[in-house]
């Protein structure tokens, strides 16, 4: 199994989720994160104190899938999260040793 961790633009979240469902992805987990990268933020000014905002709001998607599905998932995220503008984000793939579903104690593929 693989954990696919994607950092994307927040407004692309629904598109990505919809792109994954047809592949058979039944669950995923999302966090609000802040990203630092090539994309530059706005400057904020509060009564003369200027803050350059280095961190931009992003969304992190974590989805665990069977190794066979990993490439398709990466592909689908790439397409659905793509705008072509700087800051579109990254996808990382990490190996997972074990997965368990808490409700049923099913493990691995059955747990996803």
């Amino acid at each position, binding site marked *: 199994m693989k954990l696919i961790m994607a950092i994307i633009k927040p*407004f692309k979240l*629904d598109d990505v989720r919809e792109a994954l469902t047809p592949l058979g992805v039944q669950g995923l987990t999302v966090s609000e994160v802040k990203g630092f990268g090539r994309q530059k933020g*706005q*400057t*904020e*000014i*509060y009564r003369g104190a200027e803050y350059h*905002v280095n961190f931009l709001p992003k969304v992190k998607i974590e989805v665990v899938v069977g190794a066979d599905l990993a490439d398709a998932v990466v592909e689908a995220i790439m397409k659905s999260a793509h705008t072509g503008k700087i800051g579109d984000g990254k996808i990382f793939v990490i190996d997972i040793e074990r997965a368990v579903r808490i409700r049923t104690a099913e493990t691995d593929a059955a747990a996803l």
Partner: protein
Amino acid sequence: MKTLLRRAAFALPLLALSASAFAEDAAAPKLDSGDTAWMLTSTALVLLMTIPGLALFYAGMVRKKNILATMMQSFAITALVTVIWMIAGYSLAFTNGNAYIGDLSRFFLNGFGANWDKPFILGAGLKDLEQVQTVPESVFMMFQMTFAIITPALIAGAFADRMKFSALLVFITLWSLLVYSPVAHWVWAPTGWLNAGVFGLPGAADFAGGTVVHINAGIAGLVCAFVLGKRVGYGTDNMAPFNVSLAVIGASLLWVGWFGFNAGSAVAANGRAGMAMTVTQIATAAAALSWTFAEWAAKGKPSVLGAISGAVAGLVAITPASGFVLPGPALIIGIVAGVVCFWSATSLKHMMGYDDSLDAFGVHGVGGIIGALLTGVFAFGPFTATKDAPLGTNIGGLAQFESQVVAVLATLIWSGVLTFIILKIVDAVVGLRVTEEEEREGLDVVLHGERIG
């Protein structure tokens, strides 16, 4: 015979007092400290309606990234209209001029120093039309200013989330001078043509601003929604309000402040003000309940946003009627307003396919029309009795209703057309809308360089 309900509205307080406290000396008008106290208070209450009331009501309905920009709209409009009103708006609305517009005799509040401690006479010099008040002109001007402020601020609900701040400032400046001041003059100046009545009908009855404020702002909002177009992501993205609790605070302050709006429109602390407050409370509560139950029945749950929207619909609808009706009719006006505005904000909008972000038209336009028309139906004789129109002769029945229809149509047409023209001019000169990318990023940081943490 011309029977001016609104004229009665202004004239009556003094008459009532003449009959009691000042009976011995009705000739020389005097300031009344109690009336002045109530009008000072009412002015504060109506300002409270816009900032922070409306600022919160609207900000509570937008997404996180637009909260500050939405508040800024109300706040900047407050500052801007204050200055416009002082320079020319007040003069254009409330000096005699002609039937369509005032003159510039109060340009920059010219003449205020000379009369600072004298009772104000609206329509001074107009034989038989003078409305002698028991408060100084500064107080009358300030009270009216707060109305001139909130009206354009209401429009902002229609174009929330996408208008450029620079465009807003230009639009509001023009709208205040070209739409608000004229319409206020028509309805509330003794010389105004709607106040005087046309086609042999009695004068239009608008106690606290059903036409001047709500229909006016509502139709302008509708035109804005059409001209600016829908928000990016409308219908697909989740546009759920970030923090409805702000909207609850805002609606609550609107409710409380509206006592100044309606009961203050008696321009005196008397029985009419008390009755205006009473019917305001009853209609508002009834509308909050009727929207709530309508939504509960239609959608399965009674939402908090629904309850507060209903309350605002009730406040809007009772506004033109508040000095003219008794508690029973107020209950009916409230119930009708709650149900109909629920329908207009949730169904009509989708049927017609415009994106009036915060339902400026659905609540203020529709609620204002309901109220203006029902005022004609329910007006209670004794409130509007004057020397010229004694009890029993003064309510026009069908004629009054027709007069209300005329006033509604006149406002819809003038405001609708002018708003359209102004928007087109502003679009050509500074551009109305931010770019799609800016809209996605959010107006707070794009327009104002700020962000809620």
